[in-house]
């Protein structure tokens, strides 16, 4: 990993709480900040036993389930997953076979154990999965789930994600896991920029659009059923940037209003009823709002220069962060959704700020900041205290953050491998993980559920 070693990387815990204890201390003569989060919070230690195949031929299927489940729990950021090599030799397939002492004792030292069995007969798949307290032999399992479906790798992955989310929700005080979520993004793999989607862990990458023009800036609707994006289409006899919608239900683009000029960067209101977007239909690029049904267009901003990249506060629905170059360089602004109360979010030095993204808690804003030294890095601002945390550093260009619905993860694009690819990380900047490898991939957006 390309992160510098001099930066402290404390154990990460529940970000929402911990960021309130942020200590943002500008280091003398340096332009970054040192952070300390989640101090003293112990993560539960969870072991994942190999799931038992009910027939020898279903061994590979059981392996998929165990592997995906383990990866999901590791990714969650709130669980310490016991290394597989520490597991006792015998894996229980049902609660009656669990020998608590073996799992609770060193080297496994597990607090909790996930285990179960998988049977596949014909096209009928049944998975039984439990989570038990390894320290209490008397207690019934914390969780018991039975999944039934088709015998396909995709189905097994889906069930593993669901079981992982159950465990994560249990251990995180109710914040759901993100193992069943999707990430929309833009890829050049087919020769033109199209909208793609993938599972949150990078599997199942597939194109959604095939418009063969330029498709950009996908944004999931809050119900996850539509994606608004920037497309190129005819308006007034000229091909220009327009707002397009894609239906996840029908797998097809949907018609939407077209306007002369450049129309881009659609953002959903948290209730999914409205879209805010940039349009030059009146000349200067300004922000406009329209009902998702295509009616009730109204202009929101009035200022010389570019106003774009609206991001609707997902908690309040009243506040919108956006980017404007009305003061010279593009910078971060806040306003009410009706355009009133415009306020610049001042940053410590000259810079170039783009790509605002609200955390689900409606308090933290992630953004890309081009520093005077030419670096592009991701930062977080606590909009209440205005404190700033650096998330990436010295790893080429890092841009376009988007939050996972758990508020613990961020997906972004980075050129650290030499090509532009999609990465995820925990919201404290640790555990960076590359999701795409083929072609040029950008503009990720995490699905809301």
């Amino acid at each position, binding site marked *: 990993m390309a992160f510098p070693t001099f930066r402290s990387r404390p154990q990460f815990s529940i970000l929402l709480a911990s960021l309130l204890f942020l200590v943002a201390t500008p280091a003398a003569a340096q332009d970054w900040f040192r952070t300390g989060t989640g101090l003293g919070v112990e993560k539960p230690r969870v072991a994942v036993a190999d799931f038992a195949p009910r027939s020898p031929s279903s061994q590979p299927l059981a392996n998929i389930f165990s592997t995906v489940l383990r990866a999901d729990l590791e990714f969650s950021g709130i669980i310490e997953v016991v290394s597989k090599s520490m597991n006792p030799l015998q894996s229980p397939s049902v609660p009656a076979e669990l020998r608590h002492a073996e799992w609770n004792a060193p080297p496994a030292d597990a607090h909790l154990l996930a285990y179960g069995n998988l049977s596949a007969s014909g096209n009928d798949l049944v998975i039984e999965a439990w989570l038990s307290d390894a320290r209490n032999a008397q207690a019934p399992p914390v969780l018991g789930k039975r999944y039934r479906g088709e015998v396909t790798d995709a189905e097994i992955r889906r069930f593993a994600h669901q079981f992982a989310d159950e465990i994560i929700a249990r251990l995180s005080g109710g914040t759901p896991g993100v193992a069943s979520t999707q990430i929309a993004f833009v890829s050049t793999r087919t020769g033109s*920029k199209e909208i793609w989607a993938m599972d949150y862990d990078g599997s199942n990458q597939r194109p959604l659009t095939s418009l063969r023009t330029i498709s*950009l800036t996908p944004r999931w609707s809050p119900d996850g059923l539509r994606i608004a994006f920037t497309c190129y289409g005819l308006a007034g006899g000229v091909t220009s*940037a327009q707002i397009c919608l894609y239906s996840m239900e029908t797998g097809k683009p949907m018609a939407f209003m077209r306007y002369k000029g*450049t129309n881009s960067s659609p953002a959903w209101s948290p209730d999914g009823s409205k879209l805010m977007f940039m349009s*030059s239909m009146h000349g200067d690029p300004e922000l406009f709002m329209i009902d998702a049904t295509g009616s009730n267009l109204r202009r929101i901003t009035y200022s010389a220069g*570019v106003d774009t990249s609206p991001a609707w506060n997902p908690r309040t629905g009243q506040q919108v962060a956006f980017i404007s170059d009305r003061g010279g360089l*593009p910078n971060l602004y806040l306003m009410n959704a009706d355009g009133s109360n415009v306020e610049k979010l001042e940053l410590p030095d000259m810079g170039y700020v783009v*790509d605002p993204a609200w955390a689900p808690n409606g308090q933290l804003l992630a953004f890309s900041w081009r520093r005077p030294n030419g670096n592009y890095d991701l930062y977080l601002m606590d909009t209440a205290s205005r404190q700033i945390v650096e998330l990436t550093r010295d790893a080429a260009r890092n841009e*376009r953050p988007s939050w996972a619905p758990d508020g613990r993860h961020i997906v972004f694009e980075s050129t650290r491998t030499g090509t532009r690819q999609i990465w995820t990380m925990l919201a404290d900047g640790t555990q960076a993980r590359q999701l795409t490898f083929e072609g040029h991939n950008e503009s990720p957006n995490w699905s809301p559920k």
Partner: protein
Amino acid sequence: MRSRSKYALLSLVVLILFAGACRKQAVAPPPAAPPPAPPAPARPTVTLQASQTFIQRGDGVTLSWSSTNATELALVPGIGRVSPEGSTRVTPADSMTYTITATGPGGTADMSVRITVAAPPPPPPPPAPKATIEELFRTNVKDAYFDYDKSDVRADARDALARTAEFLRSHPEIRVVIEGHCDERGSTEYNLGLGERRAQAVRQFMISLGVSADRMDTVSLGKERPFCTQSSEDCWQQNRRGHFVMAR
């Protein structure tokens, strides 16, 4: 015995006969002179006239002819056998020589007449081929380059646009799309806005130079269609521009 005497008698007769024949040949009279030849038939004559010998394309002309001593008359091209005397109307598309040939017992005779067909006035020259206009466009239309993160028309861009405006004023039939382009720095979204601002700045400047507003549309391509793909200032400068495209 009797037959041998008969042969002898026959031989004698033959001898006498031969002897007589020889004598007669010697006294045969000279052959008679041939009879005088009949008088030779008269040579045919033919005349061919045209009502006009100079016509406009599409006009008709009457050919008329008469002949003597002809048993067969042929008028070419395109008509064939005709009666000894007559007329016909022709409409030659191009200048043409008509020839009538009379054939009779006394020989042949012919006569030609040339009809000159005036070419119609030449069609107006086809509009200059498209490639030429496109070449002119390429040579005369200059893009405007911009500073980093700016959409003001620079001094060098003013000169370029003055040339462009001159060309467009002299070719009022040409419509243009002005594309705004940006370098790779900054976000996709911000650059779409900045590109639009650049395209509009170029359009406004062209309007101030007398190019009609309704001939110019603007489009922003942000940083999506770079002219140059390296990460260097030279390359970035290439990509920060208002680019003219001829509308079709």
